């Protein structure tokens, strides 16, 4: 049997005590904690549906053992915005038709956020394609996802410029 221990996991800025077994993946822990916005699609890093930000970088939560992420900040799509105050990526995905079945959407938004925060705030179309190639969408053909990320990046640049 794998040993278990209680650890503190900060999800979307809220530290919580959880009992976690050594063999648990971050995906399993998060969903077990109720963070079901983190989706499971393949459990082997092929689809990106489970992507979360780990200290601001997008990772596949299905490939992280939870014990190894102690002390690190975990952000899910719910940590980016709310209905009253959505993140520009969330607004753009909804309004530009980038959401169809929506199951891949949380992972895409996380991967796009990671691109904009860590690589470039003004990505070209090929840079977006490259940053999202680990996220699998079967519905959209990716066109409107590219549109949404481009639009959100522009909104974010404008917001940053105003401040």
């Amino acid at each position, binding site marked *: *049997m*794998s040993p278990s221990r209680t650890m503190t996991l900060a999800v979307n800025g809220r530290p919580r005590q959880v009992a976690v077994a050594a063999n648990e993946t971050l995906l399993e822990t998060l969903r077990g904690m109720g963070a079901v916005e983190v989706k499971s699609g393949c459990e082997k890093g092929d689809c*990106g549906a489970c992507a979360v930000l780990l200290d601001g970088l997008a990772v*596949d939560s299905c490939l992280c053992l939870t014990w*190894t992420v*102690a002390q690190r900040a975990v952000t899910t799509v719910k940590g980016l915005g709310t209905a009253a105050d959505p993140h520009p990526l969330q607004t753009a995905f909804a309004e530009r038709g980038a959401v169809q079945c929506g199951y891949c959407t949380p992972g895409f938004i996380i991967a796009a956020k990671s691109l904009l925060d860590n690589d470039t705030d003004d990505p070209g179309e090929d840079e977006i394609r490259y940053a999202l*190639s*680990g996220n699998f969408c079967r519905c959209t053909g990716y066109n409107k996802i590219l549109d949404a990320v481009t639009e959100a990046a522009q909104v974010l640049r404008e917001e940053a410029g105003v401040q």
Partner: protein
Amino acid sequence: MYAEFDLLTPAAVGGALDELAKVENEEDCMPLGGGTNLVVDLRARAVAPKVLISVGRLSGLRGIELGEGRVSMGGAVTVSEILRHPERSRFGPALIGAAQVFAGQMVRNTATIAGNICCGSPAADLVPPLLALDAVVRLECSAGSRELPLADYFTGYKSSVRKPNELLTRVWWPEPPAGSASLFYKLARRKGDAITVVGVAVSLARENGICTRARIALGAVAPVVERVRPAEAMLEGNALEPDLIEAAARAAAQQSSPIDDVRASGKYRRQQVFVLVRRLLSRAWRSLSEGDHP
């Protein structure tokens, strides 16, 4: 996950080596880097260690250093860290090329250079360019450390000279000098997030119209990623005329021993070794003659 194991999370490299020193059976204990291969294997029950030692976040295994004519990377440097490094143009274009076609963003953000070497996959994308760049790996254990050329590291399919109590802590190679060029091409069944069908890295140096150093490394066409020394020898000391490049490419294809799998047949892979070695050598040589270093 169904696999059962304990997970050790030492705070420093020394602690990890102390834990590894206790290992008796190779299968019982495995170092865990980014986990992008190992966690998949654990779930598939392809491996069943009793203990994992997490080393992916150890500061002693991180950092990229440039100096004294070397590029040196800690074993836990991630593929993204390679791509985001401000001095990446000094690493060798073949390595950057391989990092750029490495999986998807999330995996690149997690997968480590040592993990890509140690997983032993013949399709590991960083290995051909590292071989072409004459990389050296450092293996450390609690009793000391040793260094050896990456070319001498693999002993067979998923097997290497690494002892169970050793950790691959660092990879370094000579900083590619002016007058050298390197290239990598990944032939795959799709463009994004793909498994390599044939991976080819070449590295050339040129002085006074003569090739002074040639490296050709092939991925996914033999049980291990390997250099094609006979072809390299054909090139060194000569001007690379099309006929010579073609002969070297033929030698590379001949040395390869690809298998049939769901991605491609061995026959096609061998054919493509010829096509890609010829193509990359021609491009690299042409770039050197034009004074442009890809």
